[in-house]
């Protein structure tokens, strides 16, 4: 990373998937490396089962906490259609890490809209650099489906220049002690998948 470059990461999903915890860990990891860090998240109305986005920026000096369109180095999604919805945040050549999870919105259930059938094909068209895998399945395999957010974060870490010990310290800081080992394992699973 050059002197004045700001690294931007956008995490998206559906309310309740653990986007905010993943965002906090990423921010802490960047802090461990001495960077200026800003994050942004949504509260209130936006959290009730709707689309959720968290944004993290770090560098020597960060101004806007909001990531401009077409500028994120990484777009990570815990729900596959959400990756498509927020695709325009990703910089040309940026990495998209998408979990193959599908959560049906009420607009689809009520018949007002359709959930696309060929999401993987669409993702491949939109994102030339795509990591597409089922983070929830991986999380289930290591014992807790709720750690899918950390599995995905592990995949995200491959696209950033933060060293492994910064991530480990950040996870230890952000999760309760009794879940530390599970989350470290989840992180490694995601990191090693890429």
């Amino acid at each position, binding site marked *: 990373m050059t002197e004045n470059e700001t690294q931007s990461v956008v995490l998206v999903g559906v309310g309740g998937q653990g986007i905010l915890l993943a965002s906090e860990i990423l921010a802490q990891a960047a802090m461990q490396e001495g960077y200026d860090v800003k994050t942004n998240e*949504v509260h209130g109305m936006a959290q009730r089962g709707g689309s959720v986005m968290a944004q993290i920026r770090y560098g020597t000096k960060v101004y806007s906490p*909001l990531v401009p*369109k077409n500028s994120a180095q990484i777009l990570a999604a815990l729900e596959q259609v959400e990756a*498509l919805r927020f695709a325009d945040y990703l910089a040309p050549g940026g990495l998209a890490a998408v979990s193959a999870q599908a959560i*049906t919105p009420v607009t689809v259930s009520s018949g007002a809209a359709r959930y696309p059938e060929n999401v993987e094909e669409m993702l491949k*068209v939109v994102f030339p650099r795509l990591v597409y895998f089922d983070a929830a399945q991986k999380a289930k395999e290591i014992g807790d489906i709720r750690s899918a957010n950390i599995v995905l974060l592990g995949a995200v870490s491959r696209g950033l220049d933060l060293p492994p010990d910064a991530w480990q310290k950040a996870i230890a800081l952000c999760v309760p002690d009794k879940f530390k080992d599970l989350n470290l394992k989840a992180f490694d699973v995601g990191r090693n998948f890429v």
Partner: protein
Amino acid sequence: MRYLMSGNEAIARGAYEAGVTVGTGYPGTPSTEILENLAKYRPKVYCEWSPNEKVAFEVAAGAAIAGARAIVTMKHVGLNVAADPLMTLSYIGVEGGFVACVADDPGMHSSQNEQDTRNYARFAKIPLFEPADSQEAKDFLKMAIQVSEQFKCPVILRTTTRVSHSRSLVLQEERTAEGKIGFVKNPPRFVPIPVWGRPMRQRVEDRLLRQKKLSESSPANRIEWRDRALGIITSSIAYHYAREVWPKASFLKLGFSFPFPDALIYEFASGVDSILVVEELDDFIEQHVRALGIRCQGRKVVPGIMELSVDRLQVARAKLEGRAEPLEKPVAFSDQIPPRPPVLCPGCPHRGVFYALGKHDVVVTGDIGCYSLGAFKPLDRMDTILCMGAGISMAHGMEIAGEPRKVVGVVGDSTFFHSGITGLLDISYNKGTSTIIVLDNRTTAMTGHQDHPGTGRTLMGDATVAISIEDIGRACGFKRVFAADPYSLKNAMKVISDELAADEPSLIVFSAPCPLRERRRVGAVRQIQTDVCKGCELCLGIGCPAIEGGGEMPKINEILCAGCGLCEQVCPAGAIVAGGRA
């Protein structure tokens, strides 16, 4: 050591460091976390949720007049509720520092309107601080307390959603001494009856002139000289967006923005060739800059509706320079991406009540809270929203106007205590017959589950009296008062039908705790027996996110299902049964 803190956490930290001992407020996104974080500094700080912003403001004012340093927190629309005490506290003033921390919501992320609180500072003739990030949020809160004590007047600290909810790095400092407590009787100072109020009126104006001198030399206002061709005057989060879009321009960044630092504005204007004002919402600074006789650009290129961003300022820059505006490319496949709006959670006790109301040709006047989501399809059973408590009073208004349909007023439990009670009094006093429904989920849910006078718990975590909504209804003169279980659709339908037919006013309290707060299921997870299901899709009519449609037959997502059983009660085929994990 620097800590990553949200703007709201930083305000709380600033209050702690400033020696604040009293914090009050009413929850409202994006302001809520200020008081929640300040309460963590107990026992050095006492915090309380008050029933509404007016009460919170008055409690903090009383504390400050007794000598305590105090803050009161609320969202922008909350200050409308507290505007009455604000306007006169400006006259009588305070002894300990008093800061109203008010969070605006440009872009209406979680609000019914966009309004610019900076206008209130000018309206009430009191100082205004506008932090742009978390470090400033902490520093400016401390400055605001100082300014408040120096001039013995209230001060507003105004944030926006992005300042309150963005996290950035903050240096912490030690707590300073607290204020000296002891009310000193002085009627000409604290009693604004005309004979004493008129001199106060004059003192407010004199004070503004002295405050202007202070804002002109305040470190919260600063000039950053870079290239002199363009000078940008800005405040709050817009500063950060503008710094990315115009990295070479000179900046006048306002943090102590009212009374306007005129000398600084003149100095800046004389040092640059042209001026652009970049501010969110109203043209508060721009109008003043023009009134000073300084030519500037502003609203003509920078939008005043919805929040700003780096992207929107790139468009503004292109406009300013007469270039073609950067085109926003539509997202690929955008026509195939299904919308995902917020919805009532699985197991939400409000769902069945809206479903039952849907069986009647009535008008439903609503209120602010999670249940605002009842306005969306497929429930589609809320017809108006004005402000907290308005569902009750407006129901009465429609009735006396002669609305041919019966009108049902809906209110939440927290908003009932906030401003529903006076509406009830109005209906019974003026012989109305409206049916009022309280959707009581035992918490202030939408803002993140805060306690209120009905929950039996204080913000400090202590057990306290749980005030009964039914008792209040009876005390307000309602004779037909009913408590009902929102999870029993049959009973909900019956009580609603009965009360709509009554020729006197009724109050129905549908009470069940918010499952999201309880963090547990209401009952056993339901499943659809595929061999019994006829595919009629009536279960999709309750708008539950745990029931997935769009395929051949609906199916229940066992992870999301909260086990409330409403779907089972609407299924005519009896295909839905308790079958999953409890």
